[in-house]
C-alpha cells in the first residue's frame, strides 16, 4: 500500500470531502504513472545518448567520410543541447518511434510488434501453469503447516528461487528433447508449418485452435510446453510461497473460528472463505509474477531460440544495435510499469478496506 494517508482521509468524511479524497487518489496515481514513465525514458535516454562512445559511429561505422558524419549528426539532432535532445527523444518515444534497427534495417517498433506476441504467449502460459499449480500447493502447505507437504513445497520453492533458469533450461532440453523426445527442437514452430500456417493474432496456440489446424496446434504445443513449464516453475516458487503466507494469515482470523463454530466443513472454510480473502493480495502477486516472467523470458528465450522480445534484445545486444536494445527495454519497461500500476489499482478495487467505509 503506497497511499495509506489518502485512503484514511477518505474514510468518515462528508460526501464532498470523500469525492475530493477520491480525486486526490486519482491525481496521485496520475503523478505516479507520469513520473515513472518519464523516469524510464530519462534512464534509457541516459543509457543511449550519454554513456556510449558515439551514436553516429554506431550507425555509420568508423570509415565514413567527415561530411557524412556531420550530416548524420545533424539529422540525429546530436548537435543540439542535451535537454533539447531529450525533448526530441521524449516526443519520438511517446509516438513509438525508437529509430531503425541496424541489424534488421526495420523500424524498431515494427520489429517489436512482430516479436512481442511470442513472448506474451510464453509468459501467459507460464503464469497460468505457475498459478494453477502454485496456489493449491501454497494452500496445502498452509493448511498442513509443518507437515511433510509443507516442507516439500518449501524446498521446491527454494530451489525455484535459487536455480539459474538458463541452466535448468539446458538440462531440461537434454532430458526432454535429446533423451526422451517428448518435446520439439528449440524454436516456436516446425519449419514444415512455417509457410502453411498464417497466424492472425501472433499467439500461435490460439490461432491454430481458431483455425482448427490440429496438427499445427500439436506442434506448437510441443514447442511451447517446455519453456512455459520452466517459467511456470519460477513463478510457482513465488506464488506458492506468497499463497502460504496469505493463507496462514487468513486462517488465524476470527471469522475462521466463527465459521468453524457454525459447523462448516473444513474444505469449505479453506477453499471458499479463507482462499477468497487471500485471493485479494494474490491477484497482485500473480500480476507481479507475470510482469517478471515477461522480463525473465530473456534468458529462457535465448536457450530455446524462442523468437520473442527477449531473444530480440539479446541478439541486438550482441550486434551493438542500441536502438533495438533501448526500444525493447522501453517496451518491456512500459508493460512492466503498467502491470505494476494496474495490480495496485486492482488491489484497491478488490479490497474494501482500502476504500471509503
Amino acid at each position: 500500500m503506497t497511499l495509506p494517508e489518502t485512503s484514511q482521509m477518505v474514510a468518515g468524511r462528508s460526501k464532498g470531502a470523500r469525492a475530493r479524497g477520491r480525486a486526490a487518489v486519482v491525481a496521485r496515481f496520475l503523478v505516479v504513472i507520469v513520473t515513472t514513465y518519464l523516469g524510464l525514458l530519462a534512464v534509457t535516454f541516459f543509457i543511449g545518448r550519454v554513456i556510449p562512445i558515439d551514436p553516429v559511429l554506431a550507425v555509420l561505422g568508423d570509415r565514413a567520410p567527415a561530411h557524412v558524419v556531420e550530416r548524420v549528426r545533424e539529422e540525429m539532432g546530436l548537435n543540439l543541447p542535451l535537454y533539447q535532445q531529450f525533448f526530441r527523444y521524449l516526443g519520438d518515444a511517446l509516438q513509438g518511434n525508437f529509430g531503425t534497427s541496424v541489424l534488421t534495417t526495420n523500424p524498431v517498433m515494427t520489429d517489436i510488434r512482430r516479436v512481442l506476441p511470442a513472448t506474451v504467449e510464453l509468459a501467459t502460459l507460464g503464469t497460468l501453469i505457475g498459478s494453477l499449480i502454485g496456489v493449491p500447493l501454497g494452500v496445502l502447505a498452509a493448511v498442513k503447516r509443518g507437515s511433510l507437504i509443507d516442507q516439500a513445497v518449501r524446498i521446491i520453492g527454494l530451489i525455484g528461487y535459487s536455480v539459474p533458469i538458463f541452466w535448468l533450461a539446458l538440462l531440461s532440453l537434454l532430458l526432454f528433447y535429446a533423451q526422451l523426445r517428448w518435446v520439439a527442437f528449440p524454436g516456436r514452430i516446425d519449419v514444415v508449418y512455417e509457410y502453411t500456417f498464417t497466424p492472425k493474432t501472433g499467439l500461435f496456440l490460439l490461432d491454430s485452435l481458431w483455425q482448427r489446424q490440429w496438427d499445427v496446434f500439436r506442434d506448437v504445443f510441443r514447442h511451447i510446453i517446455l519453456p512455459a513449464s520452466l517459467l511456470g516453475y519460477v513463478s510457482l516458487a513465488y506464488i506458492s510461497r506468497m499463497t502460504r503466507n496469505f493463507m496462514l494469515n487468513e486462517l488465524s482470523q476470527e471469522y475462521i473460528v466463527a465459521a468453524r463454530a457454525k459447523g462448516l466443513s473444513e474444505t469449505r472454510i479453506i477453499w471458499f472463505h479463507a482462499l477468497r480473502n487471500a485471493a485479494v493480495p494474490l491477484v497482485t502477486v500473480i500480476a507481479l509474477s507475470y510482469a517478471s516472467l515477461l522480463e525473465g523470458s530473456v534468458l529462457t528465450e535465448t536457450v530455446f531460440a524462442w523468437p520473442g522480445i527477449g531473444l530480440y534484445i539479446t541478439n541486438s545486444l550482441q550486434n551493438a544495435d542500441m536502438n533495438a536494445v533501448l526500444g525493447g527495454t522501453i517496451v518491456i519497461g512500459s508493460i512492466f510499469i503498467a502491470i505494476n500500476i494496474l495490480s495496485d489499482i486492482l488491489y484497491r478495487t478488490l479490497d474494501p478496506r482500502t476504500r471509503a467505509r
Partner: protein
Amino acid sequence: MTAVPSVPMSRRDWLLSDRPQSRTQARLGRAYMTWRRFSANRLALVGLGILMLLILMAIFAGVLSPHSPVSGNLAGARLLPPGSPGYLLGTDEQGRDILSRLLHGSRLTLFVIILVAVIAAPTGLIVGAVAGYAGGWVDAVLMRITDIFLAFPKLVLALALVAALGPGIENAVLAIAVTSWPPYARIARAETMTVRNADYIAAVRLMGASPLRIVLLHVMPMCLSSLIVRITLDMAGVILTAAGLGFLGLGAQPPLPEWGAMIASGRRFILDQWWVATMPGIAILLVSLAFNLLGDGLRDALDPREAGQ
C-alpha cells in the same frame, strides 16, 4: 543498588543475565540470543556452511586447484568426463580442469556479491534514512525516485546498461548495483519512520546532536538488521543475474572462469559432454540456495516480528 549475587555464574548465565553490568555484556548477551535463535534453524546453518566453504574456496583457490584455471591441455585432455584421472569434474573444450575453474570462479562470485553489496546497500541506506528522517518534500522526491527505479524491469535494465558500458565484470557489477538499491531505501525509510519520533532520538536532539549525527549514529544502526536480512536474500538473485549476464557474454570475459560464462561455453557440448555446462550450474545453484537459506534464518533470528510467517 542490589547486591551482585556471590554465587559464581556459568558463562551462559552471565550472557543471559537480565541485569548486565556493562554494555559489552548486554551486547554479547543479545548476540548470544540471536545466535541461539539462528542456530536452531538447521537449514540456515547449512546455508552458512556453504558460504563459509565458498569463502575458503576463494581464499585457497590457488592452493587447492590441481591445474591452471585458464590454460588447458589441448592435446591430451579435451572434454574428459568427470572422474578421469587427475580431473575430478572433467575438462572443458580447451582441456581445462573444470574443478580448478570452479575454484577460481568462486573468487569472481565473491567479487560480484561484495561489490554489489558495498555499492547498493549504503546508497539505499542513505537515501532511505535521509528521506525518512527529513520528511516533507525531501522525502517525497527521494521516494518518488526510488519508486521509479523499483518499477523498472531489473534484468532488462541491467542488460541495456551493460550494452552501453561495454561487457565486463565491473560493468556487470555496476549495472546490478544500480538496479538493486531501491528496496534498501524503502526498508531504511520504513525503519527510520518508526524510530524518528522515539524518545531516545528526542533525547539526543535535546543534547544538541546535529541531524547528520542523529541520522548517521542513531537512526542508521536501527535499520541494519532488516537491511542485512534483505541483502542476504537479494544476493541469491544477484548471483543469478550476474551468471545470466555472464551466460549472455556480457559479464566476465574469457578466459575468466566465471560460472555463467562457463555454462555458455558448455552449451555447445550439452548433448554429448553434459558435464561442461552442468558443473558450474550446480555451483551457482548451491551458492544461491545458501543465500536464500541463510537469509530466511537471519530473518527469523533478527526480526522476530516477521518470524513465523
